[in-house]
């Protein structure tokens, strides 16, 4: 347990050519009294079996909306205005409620942002695990206990805590208990919405390592939403950068970090101080994400962009494949300046399986 993720593990998962999850041109709209607000404008995303995909962006960029759309957890005033969410070949958007319920938790589980709020404070952890199991299976009492203890031990929590109430656990343990709960039926995909944001750096780091280890042990895929780009740098295989409801860059994590193709990715990357090397003054990203009820004309990032050109204010950039990127796992970008585009013609590399695992070096 003390070693970092093994670089070899995802390779064995590389066999199936079918993507596990395929989001096609998903548009999610919030109906407001002043007209519809599009928080997700035509998002395309593929997740391969066993893959770890990070989704990053600032607050208000639509990343949580996208995640709710994937899990079909959105509620009014949000609605799906178009597109498909294909999970194991079935379109979740049109899937009848009953079939959707069958599939949830068993094959697709969700871990929410704040474990404080996601766990019921007046019931024990064990009781809440039992509820989740009984919603899907008629298991006898012993089997429920056995399985609950088993998943808790996966996240290194002692089974005695099945009798504990949430307040008796630390923040890190609560968040791990949530992950254990998601693992009850060993799903194929776990969707996580900023699971580490309430934790301090040490607990955060240890949770990330644990998620990665579990993923390699059990083989599930992860879609991980965070505003902290540096957090996923060593853990995700591919990285999707969202801005103002759109994908602005999507590609292998290392490529996005080492040679960001969109100025927004670069700005996000430059926004946090380093603990190594010379101390450089940073500026962060000036301004705020745009109001999605009235997004800027042209490129949506143009009012905050450090390399903005005139044409960015009028011309709407399309997502295109960055020519210099890897042919099998290409980088997609949406910037007029950085790369005069050949518009996106190729599929989103769903059928290629190159394990992109961060380099692990011992120090």
């Amino acid at each position, binding site marked *: 347990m003390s070693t970092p993720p093994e670089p070899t593990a995802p390779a064995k998962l590389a066999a199936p050519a079918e993507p596990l999850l395929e989001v096609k041109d998903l548009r999610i709209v919030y109906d407001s009294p002043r007209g519809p607000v599009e928080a997700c404008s035509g998002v395309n995303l593929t997740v391969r079996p066993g893959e770890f995909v990070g989704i990053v962006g600032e607050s208000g960029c639509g990343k949580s909306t996208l995640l709710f759309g994937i899990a079909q957890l959105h509620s009014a005033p949000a609605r799906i205005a178009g597109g498909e969410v294909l999970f194991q070949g079935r379109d979740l958007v049109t899937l009848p409620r009953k079939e959707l319920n069958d599939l949830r938790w068993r094959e697709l589980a969700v871990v929410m942002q704040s474990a404080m709020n996601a766990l019921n404070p007046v019931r024990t952890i064990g009781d809440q695990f039992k509820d989740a199991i009984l919603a899907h299976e008629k298991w006898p009492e012993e089997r429920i206990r056995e399985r609950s203890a088993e998943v808790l031990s996966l996240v290194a929590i002692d089974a005695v805590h099945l009798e504990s109430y949430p307040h008796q656990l630390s923040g890190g343990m609560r968040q791990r208990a949530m992950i254990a709960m998601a693992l009850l039926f060993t799903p194929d995909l776990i969707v996580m919405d900023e699971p580490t944001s309430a934790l301090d750096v040490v607990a955060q780091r240890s949770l990330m390592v644990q998620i990665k280890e579990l993923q390699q042990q059990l083989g599930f895929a992860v879609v991980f939403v965070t505003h902290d780009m540096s957090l996923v740098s060593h853990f995700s295989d591919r990285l999707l950068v969202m801005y103002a409801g759109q994908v602005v860059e999507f590609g292998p994590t290392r490529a996005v970090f080492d040679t960001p193709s969109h100025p927004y990715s670069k700005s996000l990357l430059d926004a946090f101080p380093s603990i190594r090397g010379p101390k450089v003054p940073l500026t962060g990203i000036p301004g705020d994400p745009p109001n999605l009820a009235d997004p800027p004309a042209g490129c949506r990032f143009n009012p905050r962009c450090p390399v903005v050109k005139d044409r960015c204010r009028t011309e709407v950039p399309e997502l295109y494949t960055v020519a210099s990127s890897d042919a099998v796992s290409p980088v997609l970008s949406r910037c007029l300046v950085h790369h005069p585009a050949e518009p996106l013609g190729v599929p989103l590399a769903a059928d290629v399986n190159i394990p992109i695992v961060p380099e*692990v070096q011992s120090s």
Partner: protein
Amino acid sequence: MTPLLETKDLSRHFKVGSKLFSHRLLHAVDDVNLTINEHEIVALVGESGSGKSTMARLLAQVYKPTTGEIRFQGKDVAQLRGRKDQLKYRSDVPMVFQDPFASLNPVYKVSHGIKRGLKLHRPELDAAGRHEELLRVVTAVGLNPPEEIIERYPYELSGGQRQRIGFAQALAYRPKLILADEPVSMLDVSIRIGLLNVMAKLRDEEGVSILYITHDIASARYVSDRVMVMYGGHVVESGPTETVLADPQHPYTQLLLSAVPDPRAPLEITSEAAKAEPPAVIDPAPGCRFRARCPIAVDQCMHVTPLLQPLDPDHKAACHVTAPASAGAAAV
């Protein structure tokens, strides 16, 4: 030179346990000696449960110390008598809170809180003077245009803007020292830097000192002049920020540093220590509080509490292994 604020063996214990006559004591802060000079940002770094927020509350006089004293500009704070002196201290040492969504009253415009503070702490100003000062502090924290911002309600501002209002509020009192308890941890990474820059600007242009409490040692490096690392209620290492981070001596400081996510560096091996959690320090026996997670603990750590030893004049660490008492004595 007298430091702006110093604490001498400051401790705060809390009674815990549900029994009526429980005598179990939680040692939240134990024997902390802290000095903050003028025009200086001192970072207090540690995990949740290390006692750093208790320190802020002790300095803000929310809690009374169990033992030890706090000296502000050379005077013992416990000796302050009467409303006037108390008010003076509170305006000299205001606090900025962690959650900008909870710390502003949602039913008033943002000018309300600042103006109330001005009325209370700076009675010499008339209405026009207060308005002028209001605009000045809002501009000082980088909110533009100030005339427009002060007319807004908190819900009309983003998290970063709200937290700037928090600093403007503190700044309105003409403070000497601002206690900032995790001021950026609730904000998006992309706007944190802006606020850290505001803190540096307040130090450079307004001449205030700041106690910056955080668990993020990278942001501490970015903005602070000196750093103190706390673990389980003890200060385990302190010194000029660059010195400490370039050459951390205490294994806990090393752990904190290795936990910072840094895409520019390779992933470091996670030690078992990273997985454990800080202890609830209830009725502690002597010994190093980090010993259970420490990769280099020796026998002595089980029985003897290590004291801060100077490694060079400013850099101190409390560790039997990396900063043994004899070596420290030799260095002095």
